[in-house]
């Protein structure tokens, strides 16, 4: 019993620490959008095959999350929001996250290839590479457009879901990609406006740090304008319908109006009311994406065009 103090300091990891390494909240978005992409595709898939495909797409997303935790360990250690993640807290070694990420990447890609097809599997491999290497290691630290380009990684899952069913791509999955891709910047920059995190100390060139808050507000409004046509265009493709279009018109009107108000507010008023509107806009952006994909799902059951 004399060596009991060898265990003092960083506690050993629990199972949930390894789960946290896979970023379960990001995975829930991946699961939902991949599922919608797979379901609205014009090829009927056996329900269990669809279930397995979504599971392994999500596992691939989790693997990318673990690789991101590995490469971002130094940033996470500096910022308050991420300080308690398993690696900065010392419960999991960096190398373990790298190993887990690589192993799960291989397993998820191979299994998706066996479950669905090898085009979807290759697409998943590319997505993991894009998020872990292009975004996490390279762009996040080097350009204020990091959020924009990194958004592509989050926008791939519905395309992978569609590819799992059809073995290819089409205009519909490309527009689903565009919907998430152009939604990501206003979503994250709204968060960056009210989460006063020390990106500067961490050496991450966020737009709020490099170009200031007024420029960030302009960018948010501009992206809500770019986003709207793609969201509506998706409603005119074979997966759309009157219900989707109605939902999309309302949500885009709200989103653009919100972007306009963000643009018109200055920092003093925002600080005075504790960024109340920026927080509301951030919540709206979550509903925006969720309800668009939910509308696609309901439209598909109800009968698209």
């Amino acid at each position, binding site marked *: *019993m004399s060596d*009991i103090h060898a*265990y*003092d300091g960083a*506690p*050993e*990891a*629990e*199972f*949930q620490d*390894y*789960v946290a390494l896979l970023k379960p909240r990001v995975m829930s978005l991946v699961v939902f959008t991949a599922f919608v992409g797979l379901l609205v595709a014009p090829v009927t898939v*056996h329900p*269990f*095959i669809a279930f*397995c495909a979504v*599971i392994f797409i999500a596992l691939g997303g989790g693997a990318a999350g673990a690789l991101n935790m590995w490469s971002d360990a130094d940033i996470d250690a500096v910022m308050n929001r991420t300080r308690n993640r398993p690696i900065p807290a010392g419960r999991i070694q960096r190398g373990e996250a790298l190993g887990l990420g690589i192993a799960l990447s291989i397993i998820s890609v191979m299994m998706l290839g*066996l*479950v669905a097809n090898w085009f979807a599997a290759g697409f998943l491999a590319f997505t993991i590479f894009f998020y872990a290497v292009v975004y996490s290691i390279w762009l996040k630290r080097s350009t204020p457009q990091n959020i924009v380009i990194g958004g592509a990684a989050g926008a791939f899952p519905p395309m992978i879901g569609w590819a799992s069913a059809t073995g290819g791509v089409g205009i519909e999955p490309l527009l689903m990609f565009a919907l998430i891709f152009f939604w990501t910047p206003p979503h994250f920059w709204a968060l960056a406006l009210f989460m006063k995190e020390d990106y500067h100390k961490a050496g991450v060139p966020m737009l709020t740090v490099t170009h200031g808050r007024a420029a960030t507000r302009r960018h948010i409004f501009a992206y809500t304008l770019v986003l709207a046509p793609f969201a509506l265009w998706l409603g005119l493709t074979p997966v759309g319908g009157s219900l989707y279009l109605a939902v999309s018109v309302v949500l885009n009107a709200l989103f653009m109006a919100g972007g306009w108000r963000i643009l018109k507010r200055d920092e003093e008023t925002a600080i005075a009311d504790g960024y109340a509107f920026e927080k509301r806009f951030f919540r709206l952006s979550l509903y925006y994406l969720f309800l668009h994909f939910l509308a696609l799902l309901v439209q598909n059951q109800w009968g698209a065009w």
Partner: protein
Amino acid sequence: MPMQAEHELHRRRWSRNVGLGLVLASLVVLVFALTVVKVRQGDLMEGYDYQPRASVLPPAAAAPDAPARAEEKEMQP
């Protein structure tokens, strides 16, 4: 207090072991169920089983081949 620390350590290890066990068990169930579904669908089922592959034989050759195969089968003990 030292006993408490040891207990905590074992709880964490137990959580890892049970978690990994459940993950592996569910992977086994998943692969088995997937096999059942795939076999029932009949996709990509044709393996190299030392028989002429019906799908790659020319259609003309396949028809007269049928009685010959039946004879072959009769000859086998």
